[in-house]
């Protein structure tokens, strides 16, 4: 299989994960969309990647980058709509493999990328504590507010 070409400059991406049809689960995509509108405040060479629910494909996306910012909704026992910025080694995942490819966990993709030697050098995760992830096409007002705040935090990061 062809390997990604050797890269002499740092390739960076902001990656949104989630499903906008499932309430607060869409927070990652909502932040990404806000950042796309604020491109002028961010470095020109950043790629904006919408992963949707295809988390298993993250392995292939990560292979292309040296630095990534991942945005995903989360349950981490925090206050409703609380924002957390962390690195992968700061958490244990509570998800198990389950029965199917549909139960894919972000951290499994990160583990595989690491074993493949394709993990970006720099990974930062932004998460917001979900309040309601049920089949509706809008987030709760608290998470919607947090989405705006997270977008600001990511702009400040660069």
């Amino acid at each position, binding site marked *: *299989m062809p390997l990604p070409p050797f890269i002499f400059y740092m390739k960076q991406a902001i990656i949104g994960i989630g499903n906008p049809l499932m309430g607060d689960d869409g927070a990652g995509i909502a932040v990404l969309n806000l950042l796309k509108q604020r491109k002028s405040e961010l470095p020109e060479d950043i790629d904006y990647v919408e992963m949707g629910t295809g*988390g298993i494909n993250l392995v292939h996306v990560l292979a292309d980058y040296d630095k990534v910012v991942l945005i995903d909704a*989360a349950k981490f026992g925090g206050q409703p709509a609380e924002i957390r910025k962390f690195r992968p080694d700061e*958490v244990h995942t*509570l998800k198990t493999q389950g029965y199917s490819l549909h139960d894919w966990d972000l951290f499994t993709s990160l583990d595989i990328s690491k074993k*493949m030697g394709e993990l970006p050098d720099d990974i930062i995760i932004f998460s917001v504590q979900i309040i309601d992830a049920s089949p509706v096409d809008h987030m709760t007002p608290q998470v919607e507010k947090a989405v705006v705040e997270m977008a600001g935090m990511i702009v400040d990061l660069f």
Partner: protein
Amino acid sequence: MGEININVEHLTRVEGHGNIVLNAKDGTVEFVQWQVSEAPRFFESFVRGRPYNELSHITSRICGICSIGHSLASLKATEAAMGIQITEQTQILRRLAIHAENLQSHVLHVGYLVAPDLLGAPSVVPLASSHTDAVLKIVGLHRLANEFSNLVCGRTVHPVSLIVGGFSHIPSEKQLKEIRQKWVDAIPDVVAVAEIVLSLAHKLPNFTRETEFIALTADDEYAIYDGDIGSTDGGRWPVAEYLDITNEFVVPHSTAKYTKHKRESYMVGALARFNLNYDKMGPLAKEWAGKFGLQPVNHNPFMNNVAQLVEIVHSIEDTLAQIDKLLEMGVNVNERPKYEVKAGRGVGAVDVPRGILFHDYTYDDKGVCVKANCIIPTNQNHNNINLDFQAIAPTLLNLPEKEIELTLEMLVRAYDPCISCSTHYLDVQWKR
């Protein structure tokens, strides 16, 4: 002999999970059940009131793994409802699209879920250290399948270039030649993965329960994209008569509807397709089926894993053949759909990685959907899984509890079920 109480709950997300329950006492199974408690997702209601050209894009969101299959079933239903004819070029490109999805899905299932089971690993992650070369090949093949999907469908997931009546973007001859060569070059990697699975195949439980297999079937090809509904118990029906096959019903222990046809249950998926369409497989795929001793009609559900592997080979063989056909015809990259919007009802069926999938739409004269029905493969398998549980459980009682649990889990995984993949938020705990 004492008591055995197994209750495996995979609460990997709130919306959907399957539970395995087994209670046995003094060598007798008192209760065994495969329970599915998945919240309804109302896609059939989402599409009501929406225009015909949005439906394939909405229903593609039913699944993050089978999104191409849902798009194709949706487009076929719309085209059947409005009497829209598609060109030979579109038919071939759609076959390539479904092969791309079959390759994406089967490679992941065999490599990421089945291989860890056979190697006694909890997941694919430790295999990346212990079987690095194999995992590299699996990831490489999946990456190529994604590239193939991207070329034909405009995306790796949730296709954009598949539209009513044809394609909004058509790959060039140069691109088709390049991807063809990549698949030719990938065959040794597929063979290497198949060799590993073959060396472990003796670990697949030798369990047989006779059942009915339902899949698309056709006279001139290994049916995946098109055909009639076929049964290993005999019979062939147009897809428009699908309701006479699926006969959905509800049971107390499952929020998913069950189905049955001639027997108490039936099975769909790679093994069903293999059992019905073996004669039309490519020669290399047949050779590999022979190495595994897989012959139609095989009634061991664990062999669905092997049927998937054999289908990977077939999908590559047929991809090469379909691309050759396109190149011989000459690719018209400017071809665009032509049709009139009409009122009507239509049914579309494709055989996606997990089995036969039906979409059924009714449109008004403005092309607005007034009624929809979708029957997904996994729901057609739940009943069969449950009856397999009842047959296999009494044969396992002498094993340690953990081994019984693993065998039942492997049985469920063999069906490669699609249980809600609608949300993907993280579930984490801080390290102290």
